[in-house]
């Protein structure tokens, strides 16, 4: 994993998240590191649309009719439901997101399980185990 991404992962695991630093590293990762990591060769499931740069980790499962990119990082063992759209968004390892999700400029913390449907979110950090929108832990940029 690249330096900026590791920093973001650590920053969002803290109790008091330094949003400014998260944003700095997010911009740096997109600008300088993501293009070299572009990889969409291996995924399980349907045939999504990719707009590069996109990085897919190993063992990623993608549903039907999904648009991914540009500027998307998806860690290992993530699961994305049907009819999703991810733009300028990072999913760390083991994230599960439901159907009909649109995430733009979002970061989803490691091991988060968002198992409900129909979520549209912009400019925020999402985390936790949530079976509905109201139980979701969300920090706006």
């Amino acid at each position: 994993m690249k330096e900026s991404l590791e920093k973001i992962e650590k920053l969002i695991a803290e109790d008091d998240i330094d949003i400014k630093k998260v944003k700095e590293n997010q911009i740096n990762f997109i600008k300088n590191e993501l293009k070299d990591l572009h990889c969409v060769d291996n995924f399980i499931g349907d045939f999504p649309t990719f707009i590069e740069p996109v990085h897919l980790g190993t063992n990623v499962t993608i549903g039907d009719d999904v648009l991914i990119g540009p500027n998307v990082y998806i860690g290992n063992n993530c699961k994305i439901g049907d009819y999703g759209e991810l733009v300028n968004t990072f999913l760390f390892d083991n994230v599960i997101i439901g159907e009909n999700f649109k995430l733009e400029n979002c970061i989803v913390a490691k091991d988060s399980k968002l198992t409900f449907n129909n979520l549209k979110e912009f400019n925020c950090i999402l985390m936790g185990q949530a079976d509905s929108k109201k139980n979701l832990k969300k920090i706006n940029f």
Partner: protein
Amino acid sequence: MLDKEELEIRRIQELESTNLAREEIRDLVIETKKEVEKENEILAERINKEFVRNNIKSFDIVGAIGAGKTAILERIVFHLKNKYRILVICGDITTRIDADRIEKHNAETVQINTGRECALNAYHIYQIIKNKDLTDYDLIFIENVGNLICPSEFTLGTDKRIVIVSITEGEWVVEKHPLLFKTSDITIINKIDLKERLGTNVEKMINDAKEINPNIIVLTTSAKTGKNIDKLIEILDL
């Protein structure tokens, strides 16, 4: 007796027709369909405004698989790379083979893999330009997925659309795909170096294009030998 599959098909057909044809929502369904069609046009207009605002000349290239879209783009980029800052957006079902070919000529590329979609649409292009600093470019080419049918439905907001066919596709290829020629500004008939060997009636192809769209400019080229690439660049006013 109906088998299980037949019953399932009937159930789904029934579901669609009863749900979408309900009296109370019929107008809403029709209106929604019309609005969805409008979305691509609105985005295409917005893309064009952005290009014009940033003094960017833009072209989208459509044509069948193997007609020579990438080969012609390679020639154009090779000729113009020192004159313009070029971005090429390449559409394909999968792989970045085309983007890699273009990148060898030192142009920046973005590959879109459409998965199962048969054409690029304005939303794809809008997502790219929204995340780019357009002041970094003077010239943008969009190479669509190889297809002569679906791209007619989606304008992409470029200044001009170029349709490329090749004489190996046969002399009926233009006549059989009128909508794409109606919505294009320039037709390139490529692989002209094979004319003698194949005996394709190129004049018919030219006449068909002009009959379908009297305003269309038609040019024969060979990406292999480089024939008429200079003329093409002239026509594009580059």
